[in-house]
């Protein structure tokens, strides 16, 4: 069951990734002074430069030779060398920055999905109630606020003024840890504020989407049927309204993902969290195009895969698309 729906979605994702790779190539060639810029990397020796020219086929025609060379390199995860981090491979520069971002946003998404959906479902169901007014008001304000601004406000209150949390970084500089647990504790201590900023921002988004979805579902005939069955209100909500309201919510979360993640990486900048967000800003300042492009490729593919995941979840929730 569902193989048709699923294979269609997977094919779509593959095509999209192919499009992204192609777009990345075009951007690569659009770069000012490109493709010579790659070979004129100020940090490279003349032999290295010759090697790079050969590697990228820069003396050969753009198509197919350079394109093929680009594809080969990309497939091997070779994005060339960073301008800023002298002579380092882009892959190496990025590798160290992925997991802080993954932890921050993985946890943030998880918290936001649970809290946001529950809050949204409840406010939508009790439309016009106290929770609805307070929750929806707060959600609207959070939704209207850039993530980094939320971060800056949390930072000045809880780190600078109250001193409850550190202001920057992932670990305390120069500190040695007697046990691994101490290290984890320090990490969590640093994590809490940026995590709060990311989750709160996302909660605003998700609860707004879920709320309006529930309000729409509330008027459906099957909810009336469920009420007529005399089952408890919470069962009507959990058993009938929520499973249906989740459908548009899941696809909206999938579609908004690219925008959300991109906006949310700015939180890292505020807290000097050493992930892809701060790397993006550093690379942007130094106009380190190879790094920027690799980040674009990684984030774009991540978003496509996350969308695919949303589609799969949707398929599991809605029997109608499976057949």
């Amino acid at each position, binding site marked *: 069951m569902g193989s048709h729906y699923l294979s269609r979605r997977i094919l779509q994702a593959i095509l999209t990734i192919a499009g992204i790779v192609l777009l990345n190539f075009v951007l690569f060639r659009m770069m000012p002074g490109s493709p010579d810029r790659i070979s004129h990397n100020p940090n490279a020796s003349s032999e290295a430069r010759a090697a790079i020219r050969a590697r990228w086929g820069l003396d050969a025609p753009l198509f197919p030779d350079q394109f093929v060379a680009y594809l080969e390199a990309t497939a091997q995860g070779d994005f060339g060398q960073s301008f800023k981090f002298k002579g380092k491979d882009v892959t190496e520069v990025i590798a160290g920055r992925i997991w802080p971002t993954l932890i921050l946003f993985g946890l943030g998404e998880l918290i936001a999905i649970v809290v946001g959906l529950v809050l949204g479902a409840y406010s939508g169901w009790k439309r016009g109630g106290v929770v609805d007014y307070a929750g929806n008001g707060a959600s609207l304000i959070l939704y209207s606020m*850039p993530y980094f601004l939320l971060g800056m406000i949390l930072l000045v209150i809880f780190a600078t003024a109250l001193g409850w949390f550190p202001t920057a970084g992932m670990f305390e500089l120069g500190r040695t840890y007697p046990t691994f647990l101490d290290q984890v504790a320090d990490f969590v201590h640093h994590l809490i504020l940026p995590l709060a900023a990311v989750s709160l921002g996302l909660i605003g988004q998700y609860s707004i989407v879920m709320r309006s979805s529930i309000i729409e579902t509330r008027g459906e005939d099957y909810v009336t049927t469920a009420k007529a069955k005399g089952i408890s209100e919470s069962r009507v909500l959990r058993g009938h309204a929520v499973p249906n309201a989740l459908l548009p919510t899941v696809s909206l979360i999938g*579609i908004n993902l690219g925008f959300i993640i991109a906006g949310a990486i700015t939180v890292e900048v505020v807290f000097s969290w050493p992930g892809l967000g701060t790397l993006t800003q550093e690379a942007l300042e130094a106009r380190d195009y190879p790094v920027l*492009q690799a980040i674009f490729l990684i984030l774009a593919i991540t978003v496509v895969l996350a969308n695919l995941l949303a589609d799969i979840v949707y398929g599991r929730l809605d029997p109608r698309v499976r057949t």
Partner: protein
Amino acid sequence: MSADPTAIGAVRRPPGRWALRLAGWRDFARRFLRRPEGLIGILIIGFFAVLALVPSLFVGPLELVTSSSGGRLEPPSWAHVLGTDNLGRDVLNLTVHGARISMLIGFLATLVTVVIGASLGIVSGFVGGSTDTIIMRITDFFLVLPTFVLALILAPIVLEIIGNGEILGMRTTLFVIVIVIGITSWSTTARIIRSQTLSVKERAFVDRARVIGAGHWHTMRVHILPNVTGLIVANAVLVFAGAILTETTLAFIGLGDPFAPSWGQILGASQDAGAPGLGAWWWYVSPGVCIVLVVLAFTLIGGALDDLLNPKARGHR
């Protein structure tokens, strides 16, 4: 207001129709303003629009490093109601002038987005066939793409290509931001307008127009466009909110123009100078509040418009 340019082209048609349409709009405006969120939104936007139009009237000319009026990082006082930044510039002065930059970029970016999105949507829905398929594939691609990250890369590239200076009396940095936001965020608009076009197309009068022998272009402009205008406006309002947020984020992360500071650029500068760590909250709280208010206002207006245009969402049972 926005109906005027189209009205000029419609002079030769029977006058009753536009009078009718105008009456319809007036009725719609009345119902809109009766909704509290619609009224609040309009008031907020009106306030900032006035600031954006004549900032110097309220706070004098934009303060530069050379013309700063205070000391470094002064907290709010009677002389500087919102304090000063690290260069001694008055934050109130910066914020009011920031309204002009932010609103202008937001407006132009919305214009570009909506023009691209609406025309692609109308053409795609109206022409159909393989044109439709191709346009929608591209739209889907842009829908999934993390367009913000794309904008992040495109902006410096385009800037380096066209170089610094002025285009149409606007600093190129700002111009590039407008273009980049425009070409990366039209996809949602295109989707929405396409589906509305499809349903309008089904209505009989378009068929009648085709039978008479009107060309595609004429039919789209005269019959489809007026019927999707409401939706375009509602969508534009939400696009405006998104454009302000995107501009803010781009400027924050370093793509702003220090010589034409938008709210996002002020926030970015305060972050770079470590304002949160120094406890200089006044530097970024006021531009921040402005951003939240403007985005909130547009969201409220968009929600109210959506409610009025799409009564199903009101949920009767």
